[in-house]
């Protein structure tokens, strides 16, 4: 019953607030369009409907493009959206006689990532060839790490809120099976009208880290939260830019459902997911689809499905060549990848030639979880606020900068940051960097408020002016619009008297 306790249980009859799947394909009548995820991970007994509950199981395979100047095994530059086939070395095009030469930076990025995900780093890892014929795989095989990957047995903790309520944060852990280094493929562009396939090899050979997450998740929301946390970690480390829209982070989800006490069901692999939001949708849709399929007496095929973001559903993918046997083989042109730690480091070894795991460990930046803790501790803000601060690139820095420049308490500053700044930026689809109001101006404004020179209402008015980005300071706006609070007792009395007099005269 171990699995029972850890996993959420789904039942067809409960409604889930977020992540309502879109309309399904016509062939699949949808009696209930949504199911609930019990994010607390508690067992939910069979409901009144009498149906046995379903336990969904979700595992993820994530490909993160390594942020590096050159490719994994060649000197070609790595760059997004360069002219087609402009970044292709002889090796990338698999010209006969060319050999792979491992890129040190890519190894370091994988070690950093492995350490950040609490993995044990293999001091000796191996490269293998994985064979399949595809137009954008020029060598006919991909160099990967099938037998002994660079990092294994890690874990990733991630948090999310239940029912969209910020106050109910739940933290979970997913086990990381392994991280392996491998080559990216090129891109095939199919021109259906002319019956042609065009191949762009710019991406061929770019370094990837494949992060394999164990099936410890049970719904789209969990999968999305885990990937989001991984994304933040990669970006913090700089090991990958991890922008999903640019394909630097690609997520495949393995989904199955089973009844409690029974073995895992047949799983499907969902591909073609290109945003975190769609990941949640795709997983939830697939879980729902499988449950309905099974309850209607159908069976689940072990197949690859693609998520159609327009229709909001998953559809079977045409298999490349039926069932594949990848005919794995050791890559004979690359010696085993040997890493060292302080203990095993040979005395008179050229430092350019070796990678020291301990050296990398000591230089790891603060990970998001640590940063959040520090924010909570240092500024007394709520944990959920620390999540929001880190979720937006540059927001935590903005917040800290404002705090430094103002006398206002951080607890109060956070409200302005999250309620005013962030919602404005979101409304206008702006990044923190693009904010028309700098941290300096906001601090200025908050100082006026803190010194009680203006009221909170007036401060909002000033902020509204500041968004226009006309270069005026808060104080100038206050003066122009006469928004100052009156601090002078006598002046206030005079005004009051004048008002009363006016009344009397009427």
């Amino acid at each position, binding site marked *: 019953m171990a699995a029972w306790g850890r996993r959420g249980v789904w039942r067809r009859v409960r409604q889930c607030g977020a992540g309502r799947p879109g309309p399904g394909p016509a062939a699949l009548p949808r009696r209930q369009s949504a199911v609930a995820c019990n994010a607390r991970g508690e067992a939910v007994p069979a409901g009144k409907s009498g149906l046995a509950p379903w336990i969904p199981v979700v595992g993820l395979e994530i490909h993160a493009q390594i942020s590096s100047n050159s490719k994994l095994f060649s000197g070609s530059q790595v760059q997004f959206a360069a002219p087609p086939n402009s970044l292709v070395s002889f090796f990338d095009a698999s*010209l006969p*006689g060319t*050999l792979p030469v*491992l890129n040190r930076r890519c190894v370091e990025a994988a070690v950093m990532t492995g350490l950040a995900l609490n993995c044990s780093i293999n001091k000796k890892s191996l490269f293998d060839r994985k064979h399949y014929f595809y137009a954008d795989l020029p060598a006919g095989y991909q160099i990967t790490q099938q037998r002994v990957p660079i990092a294994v047995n890690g874990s990733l903790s991630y948090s999310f809120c239940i029912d969209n309520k910020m106050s109910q944060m739940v933290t979970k852990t997913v086990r990381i099976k392994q991280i392996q280094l491998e080559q990216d493929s090129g891109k095939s562009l199919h021109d259906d009208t002319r019956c042609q396939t065009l191949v762009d090899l710019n991406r061929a050979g770019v370094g990837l880290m494949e992060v394999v997450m164990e099936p410890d998740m049970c719904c789209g929301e969990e999968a999305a939260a885990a990937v989001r946390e991984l994304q933040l970690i990669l970006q913090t480390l700089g090991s990958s830019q991890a922008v999903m829209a640019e394909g630097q982070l690609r997520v495949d989800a393995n989904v199955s459902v089973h009844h409690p006490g029974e073995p895992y069901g047949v799983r499907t692999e969902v591909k073609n997911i290109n945003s975190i939001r769609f990941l949640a949708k795709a997983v939830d849709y697939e879980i729902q689809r499988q449950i309905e399929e099974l309850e209607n007496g159908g069976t689940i095929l072990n197949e690859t499905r693609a998520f159609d973001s327009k229709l909001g559903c998953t559809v079977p993918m045409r298999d490349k060549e039926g069932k594949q046997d990848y005919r794995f083989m050791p890559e004979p042109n690359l010696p085993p990848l040997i890493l060292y730690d302080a203990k095993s480091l040979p005395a008179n070894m050229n430092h350019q030639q070796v990678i020291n795991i301990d050296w990398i460990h000591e230089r790891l930046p603060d990970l998001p979880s640590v940063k959040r803790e520090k924010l909570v501790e240092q500024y007394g803000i709520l944990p959920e606020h620390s999540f929001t601060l880190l979720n937006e690139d540059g927001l935590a820095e903005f917040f800290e900068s404002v705090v430094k420049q103002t006398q206002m308490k951080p607890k109060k500053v956070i409200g302005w940051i999250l309620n005013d700044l962030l919602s404005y930026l979101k409304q206008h689809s702006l990044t923190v960097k693009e904010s028309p109001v700098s941290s300096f101006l906001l601090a200025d404004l908050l100082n006026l408020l803190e010194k009680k020179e203006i009221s909170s209402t007036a401060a909002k008015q000033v902020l509204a002016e500041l968004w226009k980005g006309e270069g005026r300071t808060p104080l100038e706006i206050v003066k122009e619009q006469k928004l100052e609070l009156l601090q002078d007792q006598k002046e206030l009395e005079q005004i009051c008297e004048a008002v009363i007099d006016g009344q009397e005269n009427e």
Partner: protein
Amino acid sequence: AALKALLRSQVSAALKEGRVTPTELCQRCLALIKSTKFLNAYITVAEETALKQAEESEERYKRGQPLGILDGIPVAVKDNFNTAGIETTCASNMLKGYISPYNATVVQKLLDHGAVLLGKTNLDEFAMGSGSTDGVFGPVRNPWSYSKQYKEKSVSKSHSEDEESNWVITGGSSGGSAAAVSSFTCFAALGSDTGGSTRNPAAHCGVVGLKPTYGLISRHGLIPLVNSMDVPGILTRCVDDAAVLLGSLAGHDPKDSTTIQDDFKPFELPNLTDVSKLSIGIPKEYHAPGLSSEILALWSKAADLFKNAGAKVVEVSLPHTCYSIVCYHVLCTAEVASNMARFDGLEYGHRSDMKDSTESMYAATRREGFNDVVRGRILSGNYFLLKQNYEKYFVKAQKVRRLIANDFVKVFRSGVDILLTPTTLSDAAPYTEFIQEDNRTRSAQDDILTQAANMAGLPAINVPTALSERGLPVGLQFIGRSFQEKQLLTVAKWFEKQVQFPVIQLEEVKRHESGVFQHQKSASSS
């Protein structure tokens, strides 16, 4: 100066002293290549670039700044090494017309040392074979087929028999390179050696064939057969010349991660006078089935030679050698299947006109591009790599390979310095006889004495030893310790001096091109 001269001891001095110019040398080689065209040793002759390189070399000599011993020396390269601007075909339809944009590291090194690249030599398709008979450009003919020595000995055969059918094969797969060196069209040539492909044709063509230690010479730019066993091979007329070539080619290459990190110091070979401190091992397993009595006799004569000179000669055992053929078959075909996957007609090479689908284009391209031998190896290799077979075949073969390598380690640890073995089971077979059997059977037989050195990555050299009863060359093989090329070549050089292998007397060429040849003949007999 003559084309028959030895590179290190004679030609380089002649060039330095101005007795011959690089251009003259190059022109004479080119002329001889033309007159020996019937040997089919070359696939591509790069006349224009060769003459240009010779001219540049001449300039350097004029300035008194030659780049070294190799400056101005005409060389040939097996057609599975990439050469920028010169076609690289691997004797396959798949790469016919393919011009590589880069030079293999070994080719670049030769050019950097001032060598003149005459052309690309013939081979079995993708180096898969032991006869140099299975390439798309036809078989290579052994120059010894046209030697006075062979003609005299084969008179017993009826004169009525068509002379055409008497010619013998070069061995392979570097048969073009061996024939080129043997027929004096170049002073040295590059081959490749995966299971004996340099040593085997060297033995049949009466030249020195060196397979260096795996990792000593870069494979970058060598179109692979079996990456974990391939080594660029060196074919020369004497052991000293092989050392010169080795000196210019060896060392770390950042483009090949399997090359050794340490710097390689080129060496000159000493004239060994005392062999009494040497321990020569005679592996009993090399007394293989099919070993001709003639070669067996020669082998023991060689052992006696060492014994009589005071060396310790001991019988040793390499018990796993007998498994090397079957082990090689699995490992070779598996890597072949993988390496050949890139030839899909998309990026380069042959592409079929078949346009039904990408898959059908792949299939047709590969069917049209590869011969039966290559396709057969791809098929068996893919079979061995299937998930359900991998443990049973590939992993097991790797384990056997380790055992074979360990055999050598044990023998060398016991105090043996060098192993002495035959290189081939017999002298070269007539072409008509050779093609009676299929490539796989032939390769399995022919590689039997050479393959284990590739499995273990050890350096090995063929030294031409004597002529057989038929008047054809027979060679013996020395196998040394890893990276102990200097010791290996020093012993080989001593042996070479003792046996005084005869110079080939090319009758046919004399008849075809009497002018050039007579000049050389007189020089060589001096």
